[in-house]
């Protein structure tokens, strides 16, 4: 693999850009691999990368039914943060930020990680108490989370409106300086390129149609490009985890619902940090191209359509314009949805399943931010057979044991409205 650098850029510019290499090989699938990863998004590609890098396991295939990162990896709003509240959640998510911080260098691929900080508006007494509790928990783990006064919030967000008759008045804010965003496609591509360079087979247009078992053990998969044997299979197909798991006779405690996002026309720089408007269930940031990227709470009923209902789009937009009236005349350019898998305790499910040789990585509502740490811990359990310390308590068996890790730090809505 020829490394990217200012020198390679100059060299290629001087030779009419004819010399750039293919970013990954796209080989035909072999009849057998040591490990098959189902799902070519950030989590699946990352898992293959860490299998190769951390454990020297390179006889691996990543099977993607469509194009790399075409699922939730290509549909999220790029937010990376670690403001969680459970003992196991804060280190897990904080480590992900640490991995993201140096990922461009590690993968020799510019993922455009921008640690611009995140402000969460406090719009109720309950969320004020929650913010304090969260801040204290995070300080115990050395993560920075600052409570802000209304004046301090307005200084960070000059365009914030605080009218006297606001539906949800802003009474303060919390700020996580190390939160940020990254170019989501680049994360998938960066992992794919490095994994491929280390020998992993990255195979697109290859849909898994069945998982073969002998007794309670997986022995391989059936795909649209032939059968592939493998004794270790990892599932990372966010949105379709229930569908794929069912192929192995496995049921999951998840619910697939749309999570919408939209972008505006590019506008001049006007929003520096990521802003979460908890009272309205809307959050915004400004991309490097100037577009205002907006997201909100998930749609209220399950769907695999990757679109979402207009009723929720309207709800998110109304929250956005109430908070930032300057955006009332902005044009929205594009709207789409992903398929977020809601988990009963809002905590990832990573590790072994009751089926031998089959592991799974279900991120839940915080999929993009956890790509590096979830992929690394998933690779760990595939390679060693043991749960990684960072993901302790994240096993699928916690529901039967009654050991839920009840996390409430997910999502953008702090009031559950009926």
């Amino acid at each position: 693999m020829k490394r990217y650098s200012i020198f390679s850029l100059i060299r290629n510019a001087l030779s009419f850009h004819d010399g750039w290499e293919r970013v990954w090989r796209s080989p035909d699938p072999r009849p057998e691999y040591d490990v098959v990863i189902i799902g070519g998004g950030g989590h699946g590609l990352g898992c293959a990368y860490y299998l190769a890098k951390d454990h020297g396991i390179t006889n691996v295939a990543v099977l993607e039914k469509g194009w790399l990162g075409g699922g939730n990896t290509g549909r999220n709003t790029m937010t990376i943060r670690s403001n969680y509240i459970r003992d196991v959640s804060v280190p897990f998510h904080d480590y992900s930020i640490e991995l993201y911080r140096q990922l461009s260098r590690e993968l020799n691929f510019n993922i455009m990680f921008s640690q611009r900080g995140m402000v969460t508006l406090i719009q109720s007494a309950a969320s004020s108490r929650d913010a304090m509790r969260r801040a204290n928990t995070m300080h115990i783990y050395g993560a920075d989370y600052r409570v802000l006064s209304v004046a301090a919030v307005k200084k960070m967000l000059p365009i914030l409106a605080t009218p006297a008759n606001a539906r949800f008045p802003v009474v303060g804010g919390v700020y996580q300086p190390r939160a940020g965003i990254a170019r989501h496609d680049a994360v998938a591509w960066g992992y794919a390129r490095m994994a491929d360079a280390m020998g992993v087979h990255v195979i697109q247009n290859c849909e898994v149609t069945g998982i073969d078992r002998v007794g309670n053990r997986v022995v391989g998969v059936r795909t649209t490009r032939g059968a592939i044997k493998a004794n270790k299979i990892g599932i990372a197909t966010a949105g379709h985890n229930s569908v794929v798991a069912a192929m192995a006779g496995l049921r999951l405690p998840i619910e697939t619902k749309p999570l919408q996002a939209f972008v505006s026309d590019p506008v001049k720089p006007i929003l520096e940090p990521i802003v979460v408007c908890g009272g309205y269930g809307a959050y915004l940031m400004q991309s490097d191209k100037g577009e205002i990227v907006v997201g909100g709470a998930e749609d209220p009923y399950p769907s695999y359509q990757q679109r979402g209902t207009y009723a929720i789009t309207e709800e998110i937009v109304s929250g956005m314009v109430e908070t930032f009236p300057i955006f009332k005349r902005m044009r929205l350019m594009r709207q789409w949805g992903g398929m977020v898998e809601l988990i009963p305790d809002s905590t990832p499910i990573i590790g072994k399943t009751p089926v031998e040789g089959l592991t799974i990585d279900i991120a839940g509502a915080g999929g993009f931010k956890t790509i590096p740490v979830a992929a690394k811990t998933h690779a760990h359990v595939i390679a060693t057979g043991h749960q990684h310390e960072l993901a302790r308590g994240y096993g699928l068996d916690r529901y039967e044991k009654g050991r839920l890790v009840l996390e409430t730090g997910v999502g953008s809505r702090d009031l559950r409205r009926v």
Partner: protein
Amino acid sequence: MLLIPCPHCGLRNEDEFVYGVASTKKRPADPSAVSDAEWADFLYFHDNSKGRVRERWWHARGCQQWFMLDRDTLTHRIFGADAGESA
């Protein structure tokens, strides 16, 4: 916007309703008599199929009754609604 056929009120907009769960299971009469696996199964493991499912919905801003909705999670086509196992 889904038009949902409430068994009592007829066709109403989706925002009059609250989605419940895609499960037709009845709560075990004696939770302490069932195994941990069965109890976890009842509480958390529901039908997340990509296709036709039976779901419990609540007409929160209408008759306030629960009912079963027969719906496809990919096409959003609604096949019917009945009081069914929600009772």
